């Protein structure tokens, strides 16, 4: 039997300044690539990718990317493993070591003898009960010896502090005790002065680095899925599960929404060329009105039990009709946001 894959596991490298693709590589015998990181050490750099192969275990590939700006990368090492991975990051300034986590495991990886990829898991005992959601590296600030610490967030609201070199948990911060029940941490970011957490309750919280104090709390419409701090550490980008991208300025405390999005397939759109507006309906059960000059969402209707499939304006663009998967047609008035009529 011959098994042919329609190989689509492609890694691309781009020169940022020109937005030009320098190289595109098929990651061999892999499909569904889903994690990626760049590692830097002095003038060398590495890339690591994570995907699945035909039997679906995890495939980890490490590339030498030192000549990437000339358009060539070279596969150094490839390992197939049963370790599941959701997050993976290189150890800062080290292209031979990286760390991966998934809900139920933490793995320390290293490349030995230049090509041999090996991993060791965090010795399990007291941490059995935790489900991991995200991690970050940081250097222990109180300590002059510059020890590398891994901070890992959990589904039950703890942050584990792990001494990287000894692969040992040195402290557990129980943030859940300060919060409500079922407090789930989803993401973590660090600046020099703060630790920033995002959680399922929709809050972004800015903590002191020892997690003893909350300086800022900002509430968003849905669970927080990603946080990332700007390089000058003055602003953070916040992405929520509902697909809203926002920016919070830590200095001025000003919040700005940058974008909203449908979270599932879009089924239909109609547009109003005069007011430069557009209506879209999608499988996520929302009807959204957009300004198509700015890309901003102007309003949103949510239907919980039915899925809108088609949408059309009346010729005067004051009213629109929307057809749903259960056979209903609803007529909406844009000026009052009221449902004028319902047909079935």
């Amino acid at each position: 039997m011959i098994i042919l894959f329609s190989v689509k596991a492609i890694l691309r490298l781009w020169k940022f300044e020109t937005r030009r693709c320098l190289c595109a590589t098929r990651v061999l015998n892999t499909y569904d690539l889903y994690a990626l990181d760049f590692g830097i050490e002095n003038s060398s750099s590495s890339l690591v990718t994570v995907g699945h192969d035909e039997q679906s275990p995890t495939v980890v590939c490490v590339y030498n990317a030192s000549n990437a700006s000339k358009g060539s990368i070279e596969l150094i090492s490839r390992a197939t493993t049963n370790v599941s991975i959701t997050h993976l990051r290189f150890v800062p300034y080290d292209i031979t070591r990286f760390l991966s986590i998934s809900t139920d495991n933490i793995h320390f990886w290293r490349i030995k003898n230049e090509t041999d990829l090996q991993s060791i898991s965090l010795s399990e005992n007291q941490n059995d009960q935790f489900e991991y959601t995200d991690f970050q590296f940081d250097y222990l600030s109180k300590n002059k010896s510059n020890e590398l610490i891994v901070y890992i967030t959990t589904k039950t609201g703890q942050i584990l502090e792990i001494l990287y070199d000894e692969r040992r948990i040195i402290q557990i911060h129980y943030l859940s005790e300060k919060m409500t029940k079922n407090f789930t941490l989803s993401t973590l970011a660090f600046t020099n002065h703060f630790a920033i957490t995002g959680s399922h309750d929709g809050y972004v919280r800015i903590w002191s680095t020892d997690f003893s104090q909350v300086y800022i709390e900002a509430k968003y419409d849905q669970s927080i899925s990603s946080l990332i701090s700007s390089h000058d550490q003055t602003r953070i980008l916040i992405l929520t599960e509902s697909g809203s991208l926002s920016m919070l300025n830590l200095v001025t405390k000003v919040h700005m929404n940058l974008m909203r999005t449908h979270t599932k397939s879009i089924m239909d759109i109609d547009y109003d060329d005069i007011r430069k507006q557009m209506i879209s309906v999608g499988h996520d059960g929302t009807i959204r009105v957009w300004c198509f000059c700015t890309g901003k969402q102007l309003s949103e209707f949510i239907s919980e039990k039915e899925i809108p499939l088609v949408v059309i304006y009346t010729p005067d663009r004051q009213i629109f009709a929307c057809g749903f998967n259960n056979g209903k047609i609803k007529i909406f008035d844009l000026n009052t946001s009221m449902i004028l009529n319902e047909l079935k």
Partner: protein
Amino acid sequence: MTDDSNHDLALTTDRSQPSHLTTLLPDPIIRLHSVIGLNNNLNNLLWTQDGNYVLYSASAIVVQMHIETQQQWFFIGHTDKISAIAFNRKSSLLATIQTGPNGKKIKFYRNF
């Protein structure tokens, strides 16, 4: 619509460095102006070093958006949903990966 003829949007080739490849690609008749929406997955958000732009993927396109003006530029080339994006430390190189067929499009051929 604003006139974006001066903005180098969505060019698949780099005109400043002519090569034999660029001549094979036709000029786009229509040019992508903006993209609404983004992929809501992990490792899909980046700041540029200068803090002026945010990068994210929207389906198979990487969008570079200016924070203040919200004008967009694009990295076009992927053929399926982009699953993660990463910068090198200087933000001079961007690496991107796309998801595959997710097992659904695997073809089986029996060879007798």
